[in-house]
């Protein structure tokens, strides 16, 4: 059972990792926590649903198109709604994110209102039985896709000039500006990447779950818990936090009580903030007075 729980947790945790990573990408570059991010996840899932079920596009091109559309939406959101109020109080930015999220949710409710929608299975592979361990097509697809994407993402960050520029802006926007980097454009890019990665989380969860306009709310909490566990602002920490959270949920459900699955994320947030506020990989905040 332990192996099966770990595999199930890994599969679920990969989704959380993706959502936490997408939140962190935006947070690191702009210091804005996108409280509307759950609805970006939902929007990605619904876009892929429209393309696959209503337009008859195959899943992979539909997923790519949905991610591109969400990238554009993320850029537009930053340019149109965040950038104009950037100098204002942080609460304004947070409220703008919440408002944008509710707008997306409202649109989904207007279109699909009272329906809970099924997405056809994507990777319809017969489960593989290895002793008691069941390896399902969904788990293989989710874990494989996210692993490839993470390798690409972190490879790009570590090995290319673009990645070095990104890290320069992360470390010091003012310094980056001084050496001629266009920080505003970079922020657009971060919002776009954040929205697209979040959307991919929704796209991957859609075939194993069901779609409804409120889908994103619980994923937002999971994303926050993973970020907290990994350390705010740490890209690697967000991924590890997501995976650990997914596995912790399964272990808590199986070995303690199934009622604990849904509150594991909240327990993680409280425990980390008390025991190690900087998370696993975050930096301890030091305020000089």
């Amino acid at each position, binding site marked *: 059972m332990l192996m099966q729980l770990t595999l199930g947790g890994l599969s*679920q945790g990969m989704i959380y990792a993706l959502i936490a990573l997408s939140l962190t990408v935006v947070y690191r570059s702009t210091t804005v926590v996108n409280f509307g991010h759950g609805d970006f996840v939902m929007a990605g899932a619904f876009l892929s649903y429209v393309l696959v079920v209503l337009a008859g596009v195959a899943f992979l091109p539909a997923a790519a198109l949905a991610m591109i559309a969400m990238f554009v939406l993320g850029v537009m959101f930053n340019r149109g709604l965040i950038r104009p109020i950037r100098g204002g109080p942080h609460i304004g930015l947070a409220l703008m994110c919440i408002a944008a999220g509710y707008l997306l949710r409202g649109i989904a409710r207007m279109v699909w209102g009272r*329906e809970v929608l099924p997405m056809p299975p994507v990777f319809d592979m017969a489960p593989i039985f290895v002793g008691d361990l069941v390896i399902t097509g969904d788990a293989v697809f989710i874990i494989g896709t996210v692993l490839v994407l993470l390798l690409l993402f972190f490879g790009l960050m570590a090995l290319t000039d673009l990645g070095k520029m990104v890290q320069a802006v992360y470390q010091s926007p003012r310094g980056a500006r001084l050496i001629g980097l266009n920080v505003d454009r970079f922020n657009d890019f971060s919002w776009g990447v954040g929205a697209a990665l979040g959307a991919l989380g929704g796209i991957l969860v859609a075939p194993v779950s*069901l779609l409804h306009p*409120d889908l994103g709310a619980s994923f937002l909490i999971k994303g926050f818990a993973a970020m907290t566990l990994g350390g705010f602002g740490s890209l690697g920490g967000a991924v590890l936090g997501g995976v650990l959270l997914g596995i912790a949920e399964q272990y808590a459900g199986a070995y303690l009580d199934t009622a604990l*699955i849904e509150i594991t994320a909240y327990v993680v947030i409280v425990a980390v903030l008390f025991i190690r506020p900087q998370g696993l990989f975050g930096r301890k905040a030091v305020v000089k007075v």
Partner: protein
Amino acid sequence: MKKYISLLAAAGLAASPLLAQDAEWETEGLTDDAITIGVMGPFSGNASSYSKALIGMMAYYDKVNEEGGVHGRKLVAVQEDTACDSAKGLAAAKKLISQDEVFMLQGNSCSGVALALRPTIEEAGLPWIVAHAVSDSISDPLAGNIFHGVPTGRANGRAMAAFVLSKPDTSNVAIIEHSNDWAHSYSNPARDYLEENGVAPSLELTMERGQTDATAQVLKLRQEKPDFIIAALYEAETAIFLRDLKKYGMGDVPVMGTAGTDLENTLKRTGDFDTVKNYYVIHSYVDNLDGPLMQPWGEMIHKYYPDEELSTFSFVSIGSAEALVSALEAVGPELTRSKLMAALEEVRDFDTGILSDPITWTADDHQGVKGSAVAGFVDGEPTVLKAWGQPY
């Protein structure tokens, strides 16, 4: 003597505004040509598919209105969204009662919300027919103005357990449920019935609303190897649970679901017949949803709501709307709230032609529907059953 008469006259004068106020209250929300009815339901949110029940009910109002109304009065629905959330439901109820001043209330999916509303509505005193939510605590203990027009959780829960035990050699029964009043309203009576028959549930699991994965629950079930699983889960979670059961090689274990789900939509949501072939649900109707006895009701809904996609919920509130109209007719044109409540208490063995069991309301018992059938796939076709292998 004169003194007493003067005192009585003074008392009468003092009481007259109160009497006038009472008379005003009795006919609030009523005009010569309309009866306003507050219809609350989850028109948004992840339980919004339950609001189909209220669409069906309002289609029945439209039918009655098209036929001339009741004693010349049209049934005018004033809709409010609860989003299956108690706080929103409470705000909706207060608005309908105090601001819109409706004559009565009918509707309400989501037991948690209806339970939260009970004190407010009981205090307000206007008639309330609960037309979808099933928790017994909504109408028990008895409140003079609250009437239950669908089988309650107790009736359904016991019917679920009875069906489970009607399968030969069933002794190992597991229960999986949400941790809310709605789920307990099914699982507690089912548990009681099982225990009355010498069967204690072997495993009790929780799956919360919004969960997208049931791996941990299914693995525990796989270890326990139950003969039957009772699942008190909402639609989305039912589909996820059944998918995961099949995924982990437990697709052959029969699962008994609540009236909160139906076969056709569960099949649609899982997208695979093998996943639902052993799924059974409480089915409160006289026929399959596409059967000849249900067809006229479906046509009625489509006449007034042409784009409405029908599910089992679409029909569940129509029976209580029929009973309401019957009581309104019995009262006559001089309608008041008190007269309506008295007339509702006179409804006996009312055959709705849609619910599997009749409606009876008495002065001592406002839970009108006492039984339910079960539906399951037999030879690949949805079939109404009264026990394992026995057609209704």
